[in-house]
C-alpha cells in the first residue's frame, strides 16, 4: 500500500495505491496522519488506484473526516472503483463523505 501526500491547487491531496486491507491499515494510518493536522484547506483522498478498503481503512477515513469537520474543512473522495464504493454503501457511509 502506497500513500503520497501532495498540495495541488491549494488542496491537500492524498494519493492511495494498493489494497487498504487490515494488514496495511497501521502503516497507512501512519502515512495519512499528517492529514489530521490540515487546517484551512480541503482534503482530497484520491482513490483512483485503491483496489479495496477494509473496516480498518474506513476508520482511518472517518478519523480524517472528523478532524477536518471539527476545523470547518471538507474531505472529498475521488475516483473510487465500484468495489470500494459498495463498501461505503453497505456500511451506510456513502452519504457521510463527499465524492468527486
Amino acid at each position, binding site marked *: 500500500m502506497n500513500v503520497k501526500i501532495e498540495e495541488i491547487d491549494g488542496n491537500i491531496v492524498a494519493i492511495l495505491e494498493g489494497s487498504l486491507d487490515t494488514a496495511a491499515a497501521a502503516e497507512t494510518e501512519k502515512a495519512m496522519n499528517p492529514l489530521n493536522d490540515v487546517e484551512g484547506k480541503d482534503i482530497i483522498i484520491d482513490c483512483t488506484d485503491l483496489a479495496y478498503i477494509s473496516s480498518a481503512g474506513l476508520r482511518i477515513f472517518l478519523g480524517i473526516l472528523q478532524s477536518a469537520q471539527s476545523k470547518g474543512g471538507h474531505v472529498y473522495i475521488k475516483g473510487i472503483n465500484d468495489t470500494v464504493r459498495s463498501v461505503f454503501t453497505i456500511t451506510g457511509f456513502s*452519504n457521510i463523505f463527499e*465524492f468527486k
Partner: protein
Amino acid sequence: MMSEMVKLDAHGEMLLQQYRELRPTLQKLSDEAYDLLSRALREQGIYITAMEHRVKTEKSLTGKLELKGAKYKSIDDITDLVGLRVITFYTDEVDKVAAIAKRVFDIDWKESVDKRKLHQLDSFGYNSLHFICRLKTGGPRFELQMRTALQHVWSTIEHDTGYKGDVKIPREYKRQFSRLAGMMELIDDEFSRLRMVLTDYRRQMLALVKNGKLTDVPLSAETFRSYLELHPFDRLNKRIAAVNQAEIWPVSVMSYLPVLESFGLETLGDVQQFIDENCDEAYQLALSQLAITDLDILSSNTALQYLCIVYVLKHDGGRDGLKSLYDLINGESDANGMLADLMMEQAKTLPFMR
C-alpha cells in the same frame, strides 16, 4: 473642533472641559457596562439582534449644551454620555433584557422612561425602553436603550429624515411616520404572537411524541428530530451489527428525512409503521450483504438505509427506484446506477422479492 464653531457660554465651556477630563473614565465605563450586560444576556440564553455601545462625541455634546446647557449643573447631570443599546427580535424580549439589566446595574428610576407607554391611545411613535443606570461599583450614570429590531428601524429612519433640522417637516408627513409606527407595532406584536403559537405547537407535538401518540404528529424536521430521541432504529441497527460484531458509528439520520417524505409518509405514525412493516426484510437484506464480508463498522443510518431499500423494492420501484433512492441519499451520480444494480442482484434471492 465643534466647540469653536458653536458658541457656548461660560457654563457650557465648563461642562465641556469636565467632559474632556472624564472621557477616559467614560470609555472604560462603556466597555465594562457592555461586557457585563452581554455576558449576562449570554448566560440567560437571550438571543439578540445587536448590542451597541458608545461614548458621546464632543461634537454631539456641544450641540446638546448649546441647546440646553443651562439645564445641567454639572457633567454628572448628563446621563447619556455613555450609551448602550440592545436590539431584540421580539417585543417580549425587551422586557427580559430589562429584567436582566435591573439585576446587573443599579437603575435610577426617577430618570428612566418606558417610552413605549408614553403614547396617547390615538398616537404612535418612538417606542423604546430607556434605563438610566449605574454600575453596582459606582461611577457615572449611563443610558441603556432597549428596543426591537423593528422599533430600531423605525426610529433610525425617523431620526434620519425628521431631525435634520434644516426644514420643518409638514404635519401630513409626520402623520405618515406615525402610521408606519402603528404598522410596525402591529407587526412586532404579530411576530411575538406567532412565535408563542409556534412554541405551543412544538410543545404539543413533542408531548405527543413522548406519549407515543405518533399518528397525531405530522412528519417534519423538528418532530423527526425528537422522534429520534426515542432511538427508533437502534434495535434494527444492533441486530444488523451483530452479524459481524460491528461497531456502530454515530452519524446524523436527518438526511433521510427527504427520503421518508418522498415515500409519502406524513406522520411519525407512518414512519413507525414503515419500520415495523419492513424491519425483518431490511435485516435479511443487510445480512445477505454483510455476512459475506468482514466489515465490522457500520454507520448508525445503516438500518434506515436498508429499510428504505426494502420499501422501494416492495413497492415495485425496481432498479430505477433504487437509483432514485441513492440519488436522494448520496446526491445524483451515475455511480448510483451501479449501486442499484448491485443491490438488485443481492435482493433478488430474498423471500420478499419472490
